[in-house]
């Protein structure tokens, strides 16, 4: 079975934040929660590079290992999802995650954290596929519709690739060979 992966080509990313907006709008993510964000190094200086980052859907994911109530699980295709009916909002996954991916909405009472929210690879959640509950809690299920995640679909420079890990690494390697630069993509050595 195909192993779903993200890859951000930092020689192409132009820090337009289109992926961030697409994700937020398309999945109805509340203000203050960023399932995906763009980080930049050397901003305004020589060597400026940007990286669009979200949950990397790690193999052997630290968040799954740490979750005290086993609310996080991994699908056969590698997509890591959270069950919001079980999550207690303890925040341990945020501390364990190498990418700062888990996000928490702030509640009204003393700013108490709600349940964890993170990138779903646009694969919805454990609620029945295409159900109202799935849409409300987890967002779109584009994978079940046969589409790639919103962020990668809209990326104007096609810096952000998502899909079958073998295919996207092949695309990336072809690019690298053509450019004659670069090696592995950011995060891959940690995530996979």
């Amino acid at each position: 079975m195909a192993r779903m992966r993200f890859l951000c080509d930092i020689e192409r990313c132009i820090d337009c934040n289109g992926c961030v907006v697409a994700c937020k709008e398309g999945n109805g993510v509340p203000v203050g929660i960023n399932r995906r964000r763009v980080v930049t190094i050397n901003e305004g200086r020589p060597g400026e590079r940007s990286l669009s980052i979200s949950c990397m859907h790690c193999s052997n994911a630290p968040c799954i290992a740490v979750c005290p109530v086993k609310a996080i699980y991994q699908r056969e295709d590698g997509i890591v999802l959270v069950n919001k009916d079980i999550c207690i909002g303890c925040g341990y996954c945020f501390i364990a995650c190498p990418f700062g991916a888990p996000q928490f909405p702030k509640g009204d009472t003393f700013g108490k954290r709600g349940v964890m929210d993170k990138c779903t690879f646009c694969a919805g959640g454990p609620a029945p596929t295409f159900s109202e509950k799935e849409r409300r809690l987890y967002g779109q299920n584009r994978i079940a519709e046969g589409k790639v995640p919103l962020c990668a679909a809209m990326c104007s420079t096609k810096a952000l690739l998502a899909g079958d890990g073998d295919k996207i690494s092949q695309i990336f390697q072809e690019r690298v060979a053509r450019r004659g630069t670069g090696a592995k993509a950011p995060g891959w050595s940690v995530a996979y």
Partner: protein
Amino acid sequence: MKFNLTSNHLRVLLYTVFLTAAGASALAANYIILNFGNISTTQAFKAFPFLVSPKWEAYANDFIPFVHAIPGMVWPILVFIPLIFLIHFFAIGPKNFSEDGERILFYGAFTRFFHWINAILFSLIVITGLMIVFSKALGGGGLIQNARLIHLSCAYAFIVTVIPLFLVWLKDMIPMPHDVKWFLILGGYLSKKATTVPAGKFNAGQKIWFWLATVGGAVMFYTGFYLSDITSRPQSELFSLLKIHIILGLFILALFITHLYMSLFAVKGSLKSMISGFKGKEEVKCLHSKMKI
């Protein structure tokens, strides 16, 4: 030879100036472009993790086993300390003092009022804290979410209402040399006889409980505050805060159980004295022998 500046010469000069300028700007442009690209892709990749979760490699390997060890640290305290007290209750038994005779006002109305407010808040914090620790067994989800909400709200209330009690009791809670002697005989709780134990208004055990609940409570509040606002600190610091919160919590839990046992079972009439404010003179003379009455 006479040098004539012809138009030919002028042309050569202009060309030279132009070519030099063009060459120089081309070199400059080349320099700028090269310098904008002079960070290798690999170098860039290595720079990103510091923006995302600094020092992840350093703490993550310890963090996961620590989290899973928490319930294993807490349940022995919940089981063995009550067990010790159960044995004490049946082997040695509670202390009994006559309720007749002169009675001494031990706790004023103000003290009692704040004691009970704090008692309720503290118990709720301990119970909900235990629920969070044993969230797996309780099935997680909304129940624990609500427990966390109570844990947090009560902590905010407690940190305010503990202040009056702290100030009222502070002068009687300063450690004294006779506290060491109290410890050596474990407060006389190992003997069936009503021995006179060295203690002022509060004995050494009560003092430890006092400092753990007030100053310890403040540390719990501080660490818990930042843990509740998890994006306020880098993840590695959150782990250190969590360690403090849990380890100190273990001690507080142990003393909390001890306090329950002492006030509810080990000293007869202890609970009543915190309701009425009065203790029998015989008890005070015995258990708080150094108190001036």
